């Protein structure tokens, strides 16, 4: 999981990001500017509707900004020639509702993103086993999601997000559907991944308590950044 340096040193760089919906009647992002360095653990916080999930979608090339620039290692994300390859190889997604495929076992779910990776088919299973072991689920390999607890499902989802050894993990309210005990365990796991693998981690949450586990917090309100844990970047 080597993280390359870019001329600016940032892995993500956003400047004046705007996002409008419904022919401009709804403005989700208003001039958002920030930088994220490789290996940072950043929490994006704010109340529902503040634009944090929209921002996460843009970082993951799931949506495009209406205006402004958004770079990944110096390259414009909206102009990527192959957004699928970017999502498959550079980004690991963790969703609030886990989004595991219900008819596939934990082991199979972890292999799903590997279809777009470069790993030969016979080796996919071994990597999936190894990833599930790393999240403490070696005893649940062949269980369907319905047979797993909420915490276990999220751990499977985390293992899945690591399937293609991405540089960045993007997590959308990863503890939103978990009880406090499992939320703590999940945050601990994400923190460990960040520390041990020097992985860039961007976590979206409305819970300021959870955001405290991050090294840096970007707080948003009405589509704007109102505070940023990194003093060098000024909220617009």
């Amino acid at each position, binding site marked *: 999981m080597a993280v390359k340096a870019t001329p600016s040193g940032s892995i993500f760089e956003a400047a004046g990001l705007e996002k409008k919906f419904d022919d401009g009647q709804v403005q989700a992002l208003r001039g958002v500017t920030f930088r994220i360095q490789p290996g940072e653990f950043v929490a994006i916080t704010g109340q529902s509707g503040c634009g944090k999930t929209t921002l996460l*979608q843009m970082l993951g090339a*799931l949506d495009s900004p209406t205006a402004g620039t958004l770079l990944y290692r110096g390259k414009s994300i909206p102009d990527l020639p192959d957004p*699928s390859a*970017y*999502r498959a190889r550079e980004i690991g997604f963790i*969703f609030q509702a886990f989004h595991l495929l219900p*008819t*596939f076992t934990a082991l199979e779910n972890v292999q799903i*993103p590997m279809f777009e990776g470069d790993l030969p*088919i016979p080796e996919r299973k071994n990597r999936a086993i190894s990833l599930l072991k790393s999240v403490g689920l070696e005893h649940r390999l062949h269980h369907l999601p319905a047979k797993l607890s909420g915490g276990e499902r999220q751990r499977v989802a985390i293992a899945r997000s690591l399937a293609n050894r991405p540089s960045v993990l993007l997590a959308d309210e990863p503890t939103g559907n978990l009880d406090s005990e499992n939320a703590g365990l999940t945050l601990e796991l994400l923190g460990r991944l960040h520390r041990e693998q020097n992985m860039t981690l961007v976590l979206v949450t409305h819970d300021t308590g959870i955001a405290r586990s991050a090294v840096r917090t970007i707080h948003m309100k009405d589509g704007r950044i109102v505070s940023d844990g990194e003093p060098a970047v000024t909220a617009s």
Partner: protein
Amino acid sequence: MTLFTIVVRGLIRRPVRTSLTLVGISIGIAAVVALVGISRGFSKSWENGMKARGTDVVVSNMGSSLTPKPFDASVCDRIAHLPNVAATCPILVDLMSVETAQMMMVSAREWGGFSWDNLKVIAGRMPHDAREQAVVLGSTAAEMLKKKVGDPIQIDTAELTVVGIVDGHAWVENSAVILSLPVFQEITGNQGKINIIDVRATPPASSQEVEALCQQIDKLVPEGRAMPAAEHIGNSQAYRVVQAMSWGTSLLAVLVGVLGVMNTMLMTVFERTQEICVLLALGWRRGRIVRMVLWESALLGLLGGVAGVLLGAVGVKILGETPAIRGLLEPDVSPSLLATSVAIAVGVGVISGLYPAWRSSRLAPSRALQG
């Protein structure tokens, strides 16, 4: 785990819906197998009958009916004098109700003509002469009519005697009531009339020579049309209508199958919108999503096709044994028809999956984060 694993899981997650869709496709394909098999079988049976009689050219006027129209028997003499004709045999054939059989082929042949030569007596004997009020029955016909040698048989208004049971080496021959031409002409009031002339070309006759002979006969005999024996039935207008109706009905059934698969696949895409968006968010290319949907619908088509072929083959077998058509048809459920039917089913699957696949490819991956 491969894409195929995902495709199969996609189908088995909704077993009832998948099964009902398979039933829909299989009925369509069974209709193709049954109807086309029967119409082809009719043609093949007729062709085999001609081969068994050693006929190279058939002169008749099929028109739009299933049996040819009668014409004057003297035509036969004109053909017999052509240089490449080795032998002729005038015949009067009709499809008619015979006792318990609703429809049976009655074939009256010139006594002593070569069209008697292929008949091998299994029981009894051949008629003694052209005027004997007797018939021989093909083995299947005897079985259908439950007749044995010595039994009386009612043909139209006349009562004749079954004097022999024969093996004609072909389905149509074995399913026929065979008798001498003048006897049948008298029974049906067609004195001096025939409706088929079997012509044997001077051997060895190549297909080009047979074609040339047909052209010669056509010039000589405006009352009928000469065709190589193998093409005779296939060129009849009635057979073409039957064949067109078979394909038309089959394709209608297949169209219902197409709509069934399309509905299933659209439902699948709608139900799995979130899942497809998640796959897109995880980096799956749209092309892979399209392939996944198309493979699913193609697999539905394949399974429905195999089930339909089995259903059709069994159905045709049962149909062939029903009293109304037993002995009349020898369905031709050939491997090529079965393979074509399965190919049609797979094609149905792929075509039905195109629109759902296109719909799935238009989904926005950002929906993965909504809900």
